[in-house]
């Protein structure tokens, strides 16, 4: 049992009645000790194998209770994996389960690789040889599925940003390596300030990526969505229709910092946190009630904007302004009241303001909601979140986040090395490390890329 302790969510996210977070490895009990308080007051660490305790899962960093739960303890080798195993069985819900997993990770567990519990079970002799093939199937199919998700994400906007960051880093690393490996060729020297600047820029971008593209956050808190539009276009009908449509209302979270209520709903596995400004229901006019400034701020905070327009009345300057001001956001445009005669067409809108936002023409009064849901799900999927593999996506994402954080740590080391006036070969350790961590996300072989790029960029050799 020399392997690191691993953790994962063992139930499908958001759908199941209970949620299970499972840990396996030599530190499983130590971690449980720090994040579970039994009702009886006995120590999780001291529990005998195959025992269960009712109690609270706590976040030791904030000293807060996450959820009430049952702790299940199995001692190696008498467990599924053959290692020490603990399970937290809680009420389910995306928020809670994800929070428990994250706490375990912060306490030293590592995110399990796909099929890793099964693999460990086999390697520790808990499954007999006749099951080897089945184990291979599990490990194989799950790993491939996770790779498929990774590839999907590759095509999304997240990966585009990672690629852009990697390019900047490659440019630097390639220069460093060319200078080191070809000392007699006239390759321009690198100035300390220039290097520091690139490294700082990349660290900044990684930080932004870690903060915004932290897709775990999306699943944990829901995608922040705002319904907007001028008065009387049908915003409240849309909200009510969406609330009717959803399969399971996850929870009501009272707004703690502002005067709004957030409705969390589950749209085909994508948790959507609708910012339900009281305005939508009461005065039906966000802009009027909250003022333009607040409306703009709300749009700024939103992950997704659903812009509702009325196709049966002439376009107003408000419509155009909202469209122009939300240009950079993930948007779906709904043209409501298709049951009435249309008085304007899409061509009347500024094509640049509309951009690539999907447009759904419908009647919120009587039409099917499916095209709108398709558009929202499609948009979110393209941004890197797949509805059908929501549970897989968490795994991948958590790993991506770790990779990004490790890359950032490496760059911080490189920056420190640089600021201490230490030589290039030491600085390059952090730079290459960062590239390799980013490469983990895309599965690229960094070393050969560097060499190819050296030859492509510099005229080298005699």
């Amino acid at each position, binding site marked *: 049992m020399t392997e690191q302790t691993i953790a994962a969510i063992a139930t499908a996210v958001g759908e199941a009645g209970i949620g299970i977070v499972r840990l396996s490895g030599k530190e499983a009990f130590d971690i449980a000790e720090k994040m579970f308080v039994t009702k009886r007051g006995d120590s999780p660490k001291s529990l005998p194998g195959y025992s269960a305790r009712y109690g609270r899962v706590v976040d030791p960093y904030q000293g807060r209770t996450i959820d009430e739960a049952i702790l299940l303890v199995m001692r190696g080798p008498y467990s599924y994996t053959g290692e020490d195993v603990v399970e937290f069985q809680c009420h389910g819900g995306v928020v809670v389960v994800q929070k428990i997993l994250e706490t375990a990770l912060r306490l030293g567990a590592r995110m399990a690789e796909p099929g890793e519990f099964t693999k460990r079970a086999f390697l520790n002799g808990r499954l007999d040889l006749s099951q080897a093939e089945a184990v291979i199937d599990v*490990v194989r199919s799950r790993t491939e599925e996770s790779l498929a998700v990774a590839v999907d994400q590759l095509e999304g906007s997240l990966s585009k940003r990672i690629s852009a960051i990697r390019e900047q880093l490659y440019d630097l690393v390639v220069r460093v390596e060319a200078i080191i490996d070809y000392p007699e060729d006239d390759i321009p020297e690198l100035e300390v300030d220039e290097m520091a600047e690139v490294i700082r820029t990349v660290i900044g971008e990684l930080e932004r990526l870690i903060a915004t593209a932290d897709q775990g956050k999306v699943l944990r808190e829901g995608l922040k969505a705002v319904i907007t539009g001028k008065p009387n276009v049908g915003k409240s009908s849309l909200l009510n229709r969406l609330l009717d449509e959803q399969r399971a209302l996850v929870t009501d979270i009272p707004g703690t910092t502002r005067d709004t209520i957030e409705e969390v709903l589950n749209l085909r596995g994508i948790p959507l946190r609708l910012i339900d400004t009281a305005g939508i229901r009461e005065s039906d006019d966000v802009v009027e009630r909250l003022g333009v400034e607040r409306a703009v701020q709300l749009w700024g905070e939103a992950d997704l904007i659903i812009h509702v327009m009325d196709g049966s009345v002439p376009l107003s300057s408000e419509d155009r302004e909202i469209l122009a001001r939300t240009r950079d956001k993930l948007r779906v445009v709904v043209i409501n009241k298709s049951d009435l005669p249309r008085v304007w067409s899409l061509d009347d809108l500024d094509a640049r303001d509309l951009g690539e936002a999907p447009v759904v023409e419908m009647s919120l009064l009587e039409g099917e909601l499916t095209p709108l849901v398709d558009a929202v799900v499609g948009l979110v999927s393209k941004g890197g979140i797949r509805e059908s593999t929501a549970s897989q996506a968490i795994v991948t994402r958590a790993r991506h986040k770790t990779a990004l954080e490790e890359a950032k740590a490496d760059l911080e080391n490189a920056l420190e090395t640089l600021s201490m006036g230490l030589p290039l070969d030491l600085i390059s350790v952090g730079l290459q490390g960062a590239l390799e961590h980013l490469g983990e996300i895309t599965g690229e072989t960094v070393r050969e890329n560097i060499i190819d790029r050296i030859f492509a960029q510099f005229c080298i050799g*005699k």
Partner: protein
Amino acid sequence: MSLHDRYDVIVVGAGHAGCEAGLAAAKMGKRTAVLTLSLDNVALLPCNPSIGGSGKAALVREVDALGGEMGKNCDATLMQGRMLNTRKGPAVQSLRVQLDRKLYQRRMKYVLETTPNLFLKEGLVTRLLVENGHAAGVKLQDGTTLYSDVVILATGTYLDSEIHIGEVRYSGAPQGQRPSIDLARNLRDLLPIVRFKTGTPPRVNLRSLDYSKLSKLEGESPLEGFSFETGSIEIEQVPCWVTYTTEETHKIIRDNLHRAAMYSGAITGPGPRYCPSIESKIVQFPDKTSHQVFIEPEGWQTNEGYLSGLSTSMPTELQVEILRTVPGLENAEIMRWAYAIEYDCLDPFSLYSSLMTKEIAGLFCAGQINGTSGYEEAAAQGIIAGINAVKYLNGEDPVIIPRSQAYIGVMIDDLVTKGTNEPYRIMTSRAEHRLYLRMDNADARLTPLGYELGLISEERYAAFQKKQEQIELEVKRLKETPVGGDTETNIILRRLGTAELRHGVTLAELLRRPEISYAHLGELGELPELPENVRKSVEILVKYEGYLKKQEAAIERFEKMEAKLLPENVDYAGIKGLSREAAERLNMVKPRSLGQAARISGVTPADVNVLIIFLETQKRGGSVDE
């Protein structure tokens, strides 16, 4: 069969790979024949009269640490030396020396001639004898046959080689020598062969240069040599010279590209990207208005000079014209034309990490025949092939040096795991653990192995142990000796340009400051009498301790995967769960370990998982194959 025809080991070729292979096998007690096309061309340096440089210098040190000859031979015959990259960090400093070509050859030949068990012979091998899949000896052009259970091919660029000078092409070999055509044909029937290309620049008479237009490049003296046994070198050195090509040069080349063998379609094999011809540089980097040219003297007693940077496959009259446009070379007399050369070599996928071929037991290959380029790369493979030939004869496990322990390991692993589509050159960027693979610790990394193999003498081993002990003691002393906190010390520190100390620290902590060197510590207290190389190692070990520790941890993780050995005779196509591509690649490479398997392109993490489970089933005595 008389005793004269029977050897334990036959080495074909006496270039840098062949010499090291022969010496290693003979020193390890095997009766070894080394065959060369010409006894006057042992250890020939057909390209630059220069050895070392980034990555390559570390290889030479590693060969020396294992008990090889290249380092000693360089130290004894160099005309100039410089330490490159001194300000770029401890791991990438590298020695580069200019050699007297003839002296280099003469000394190496003498070493071979005087080594017991080694028989240096002239002869052109025409055929490899193979019996039941085992190497059995070689047939020579003169009609003789030599028998052995091990043959090491170190044939360099001579296999069916063809020289190109503009539109002219002929069957030939470097420096006016004979190619080896029959053997090449024979090998094509036995092994997978590819065709590579490389080239050289013109050689000129140094009396014809205008030195007022050239800048001078002096060497460094005293110089720390390549070999552990050499110590400091203090000789009078010769300078090299530097000039640059001009717009005019580039115009001539651009206008006549169709006449270069490289671009006319005459040459089909890929050339090395790090060693481009001047025409390639101009085509690929059209924005560069000039390219560096180094003029390297070829010996003390010759006026021949090598124009490094002007390698070309242009016709002769254009070579003359090109030189006319380069400042200082306007009236240069060309003594040897530049040429490109195409030659046969093995697809390195056909080799095991031991450098034995997968097809023919007892057949080893080393040097350019394996798709590499460079004297240093060749020598490093040579010594490994020699060692493993002996291991094979003794029925022992081959010596496989992991990537984490030496550039030799990086190079061989790259070749056999990833193959190569151009002549392969070592680069420090190829190593994952560069901070550990330094010139200064090559002995610490490999000399114990060299000693164990019987390639390092008792005296040298004792000296090595003494050096390690001195390093250890001095590091310990620096870590335990307090310093500072008093006015007197602070006055000295201020003078050294470093911050004052408010309270005491250890000497080691002070040495970690970038602006403080080991020598500076001498101003704060007496330093023990220690050789320069010991001081250097101590300084590196203390100054960069944090970084080195991290690297050690990374090496430990890396070596864990390398230690998980895969069985030798597995048909990967029979393992359920492997993708077809992975199975094909695994069958081709036949990796030694899980670590190596994971580095094969086309083998995914899912495939590695399947292999882990396969290994476990093997351990339990079951099987998942069908």
